[in-house]
């Protein structure tokens, strides 16, 4: 998996609460069994003028310069709520997003982010709003830095906003770890568990 350490980039404000994964990638845009070919469908319902069309809605933030080159997304509480579709994260990643800054996330979405090289930063909404205000003054030059080594976001004016992240998730992103390979190293423990459990709960073992 791709690692995340730090980026300094254009940040796009999408200051809405409860942005659901149906909005991030509508089901109709998931046309193949796979993780790719999804960027064009990102936010399709908001980005384009009609369902199925590719005529851009000029007012939508990601259709405007320099937000077309954003690598960071600023949003409201409960970002990525709803459907578990990992396609939402694959679409964001393929489009170019590497970090999101929001007050909270849908649990499955946040888990999907850290398994695909996207950092979901949790900061108070007041901070998100302040970042957006600073960025909007001149988005091309007023960049935001997100540093996972130091666990801090730096605003365009230099203000530092520390954030916390579960250590396991942080390690996963920093090291670009393969979760399955890590767990398979514990094969003995899994087999030992099954041995004990089979005696205790035999009905589980079909």
């Amino acid at each position, binding site marked *: 998996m791709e690692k995340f350490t730090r980026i300094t980039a254009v940040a796009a404000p999408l*200051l*809405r*609460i*409860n942005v*659901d994964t*149906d*909005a991030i990638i*509508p*089901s*109709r845009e*998931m*046309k*193949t*069994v*796979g*993780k790719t070919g999804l960027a064009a469908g990102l936010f399709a*319902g908001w980005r384009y003028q*009609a*369902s*199925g069309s590719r005529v851009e809605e000029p007012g939508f933030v990601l259709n405007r310069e320099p937000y077309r080159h954003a690598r960071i997304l600023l949003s*409201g*509480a*409960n970002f990525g*709520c*709803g*459907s*578990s*579709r*990992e396609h939402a*994260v694959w679409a964001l990643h393929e489009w170019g997003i590497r970090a999101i800054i929001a007050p*909270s*996330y*849908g*649990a*499955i979405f946040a*888990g*999907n982010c850290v*398994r695909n090289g996207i950092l979901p930063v949790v900061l108070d*909404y007041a901070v998100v709003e302040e970042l957006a205000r600073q960025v909007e003054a001149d988005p091309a030059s007023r960049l935001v830095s997100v540093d996972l080594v130091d666990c801090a976001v730096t605003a365009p004016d230099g203000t530092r906003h520390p954030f916390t992240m*579960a*250590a*396991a998730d942080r*390690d996963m992103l920093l090291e670009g770890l393969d*979760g*399955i390979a*890590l*767990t*398979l190293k*514990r094969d003995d*423990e*899994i087999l030992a*568990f*099954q041995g004990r*459990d089979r005696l205790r*709960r*035999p*009905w*589980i*073992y*079909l």
Partner: protein
Amino acid sequence: MARTIIDKLWDEHLVADLGNGASLLYIDRVFLHERTGSVALKELAAANRRVRNPEQVFCTMDHIVDTLPGRGDATRMPGGGEFITQTRAAARAAGITLFDIGDDRQGIVHVVSPEQGIALPGVTLVCPDSHTCTLGGIGALAWGIGSTEAEHALATKTLAVRKPRSMRIDFRGRLAPGVTAKDMILALIGAHGASGGVGYAIEFAGEAVRALPVEARLTLCNMGVEFGAWTVIIAPDEAVFDYVRGRPYAPQGQALDQAIASWRALHSDAGARFDRELTLDCSTLAPQVTWGTSPQHETGIDGAVPDPALEADANRRQAMERALAYMGLEPGTRLAGLPIQGAFIGSCTNSRLSDLRAAAKVLEGHKVAQGVRAVCVPGSSQVKLAAEREGLDRIFREAGFEWRESGCSMCFYAGGESFGFEERVVSSTNRNFENRQGPRTRTHLASPVTVAASAIAGRLTDARHLAG
């Protein structure tokens, strides 16, 4: 030390403490469907990894499969056929059990898994589907995951999980007649918001929960994810043990006795501490209906569309304004009486036999109003067969409902079937997001009883006031 039901299930499934606050939990059952399971199986095979215990992994066709009578692999969804054929091939190669099109065990994953006795009290069950929390209704610790995590569960029989904070919600009092589990969960989300449960594993408890039949508990838990919860659970009781008895994959005979004896301990100890406790008075609840584009945008059917100007929080206000523009509604409009063009009964929320019976009771002897397209999609092939044995299909058909094969159907739009542009639909599903049921389709979530009553009247209707 007094433990919560979640503590007990966590401890029972703990394979290893990973440090860093993470636990390696044993996963008893994995369920997949053709929409998101397909990619998990494909990627796993591509990485030359195998499914560790294929006999404990199940798959169904529900999201993409057509629900029109006489269906096969062809679907109206662009690219849909590929999901079906690739899932079938991958499931066969992996040696897992597939409930394929034409199999009478096929159906919506969260309807099938308790129905077949695959989800049981006390099991850990994961599925790459957000509504996996449904199975908390029978006392399973079940939660939705992504496809990459599904690969992990398939390859290792475990998941690395951080233990969420704990919450208990006490649903107090007794429901009035005509008010259902769907109304309870909508009211909870309305009261505390769609992110009210973010970061929590939640026990649903209280008199109103205990009084719910098992299928209604599945409905209540189904929308736990719409509350933002990591998952939700209800302590299993005699009603659940009776429900489980005789299910195809459930333990039988002595094994069942042994299982039930262990399941009786699955409740929070007296004095167990929760990080947060909430209460909801159910005795005064009216049937609930949504007016906006988040499940938190809801009120009693006897209520009115709220005025965003009165909302102090700017974020919520803007979301409300966007929602009203999308829904074509003005503040102050009474919800009861709003003309509708569509009525949908189905989905993993409300498509079980008891849901269809309740709706049929309202529909019997009535006709769907002119100009309303009404569709009923049983949650599983077993539900459909049982309903047909009772003659419910006849009641639905004679009322003017389409009677479909089982699947997720028009709960979501994937480029195939939908309700029309800016059409107003009353739906027994779980999500009223923008464009969820079709391009600019306006969804009002409600119970099957409210959907049936509204279909007859041609407008959002309080079933309690429907003249016999």
